[in-house]
């Protein structure tokens, strides 16, 4: 989340502009412009992959979910309320697909999300202290129920608003805020004082 009102305004403007472009592409797609679908995929593919990967912790599974989600989105494009933004609607499909995929995945051995994944590319952050913090964060996140973990990821990492998460998770806004409060409280309890950990 942005920390200043100006930052909030800028982020809101960017989001509004992106939503407008999405709406135009959806409009073109509904009129039979097949290239608009490719453009929509191009615009949202990376973020879709990030959401799926954070839920599944497995690259190939996340790619499969991204594929399935875009196909499902196309099949359901008529059900999209065009007065609402496209991204939360698509994210809802991705989250549902990823959660279903994870529940049905029984035999496949899954990789846990490596907390030092950034270290795959050379970085000065790759030190022991950082690694220990990530390890603690990873363990703290793992203690959360699936629903709360997903809500925290959507709120604090993907930076959706509670209203958007409510739409994505098919919950009341108040319920989302309650889960978010509970999850943050639990994380703080596990991590201890944040000044110490950071």
């Amino acid at each position: 989340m942005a920390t200043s009102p100006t930052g909030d305004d800028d982020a809101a403007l960017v989001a509004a502009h992106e939503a407008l472009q999405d709406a135009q592409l959806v409009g073109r797609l509904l009129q039979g412009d097949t290239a608009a679908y490719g453009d929509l995929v191009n615009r949202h593919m990376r973020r879709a992959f990030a959401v799926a990967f954070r839920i599944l912790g497995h690259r190939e599974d996340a790619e499969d979910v991204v594929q399935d989600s875009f196909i499902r989105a196309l099949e359901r494009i008529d059900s999209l309320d065009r007065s609402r933004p496209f991204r939360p609607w698509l994210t809802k499909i991705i989250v549902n697909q990823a959660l279903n995929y994870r529940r049905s995945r029984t035999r496949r051995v899954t990789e846990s999300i490596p907390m030092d994944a950034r270290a795959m590319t050379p970085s000065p952050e790759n030190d022991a202290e950082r690694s220990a913090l990530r390890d603690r964060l990873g363990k703290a996140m793992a203690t959360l129920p699936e629903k709360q973990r997903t809500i925290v990821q959507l709120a604090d990492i993907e930076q959706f608003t509670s209203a958007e998460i409510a739409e994505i998770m098919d919950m009341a806004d108040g319920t989302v805020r309650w889960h978010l409060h509970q999850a943050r409280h639990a994380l703080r309890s596990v991590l201890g004082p944040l000044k110490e950990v950071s």
Partner: protein
Amino acid sequence: MKENRMHGDVPDLELGALLRDNTPEPPYDAVDWLALHGRITARARPALLRPAPWLQLIARWSTFGIPATAGAAALLVILLGTAVMRPAVRQPGSTVAYSTLEEELNASVSSVLDASAGDILEDMLLESAPW
């Protein structure tokens, strides 16, 4: 506001920043984005080439609706044609009544005419007699 704060409406900036900074980025570099895009659009092609719902409706109507309408029209023409060609069915009672009435009228008119003509002729002969 207090209620909202209690229920997580206000972002926990400190924890949020910590999570963002320390949650690993997904392995973007390991994904072949061009290939993924290609796979998605290839799978979507059949659905994309399918006509719009309103066009499908028209297509469905043209498949079944046009032959059905043409068949119904042909049937209607045949039925109407048969009705025109067929002689009118007359009720026997009404025919008899009609003929009887016609004959009766003719007979009455003739008798009246005959009687009048005879009287006029007789009057003329009597007037022209020398006596």
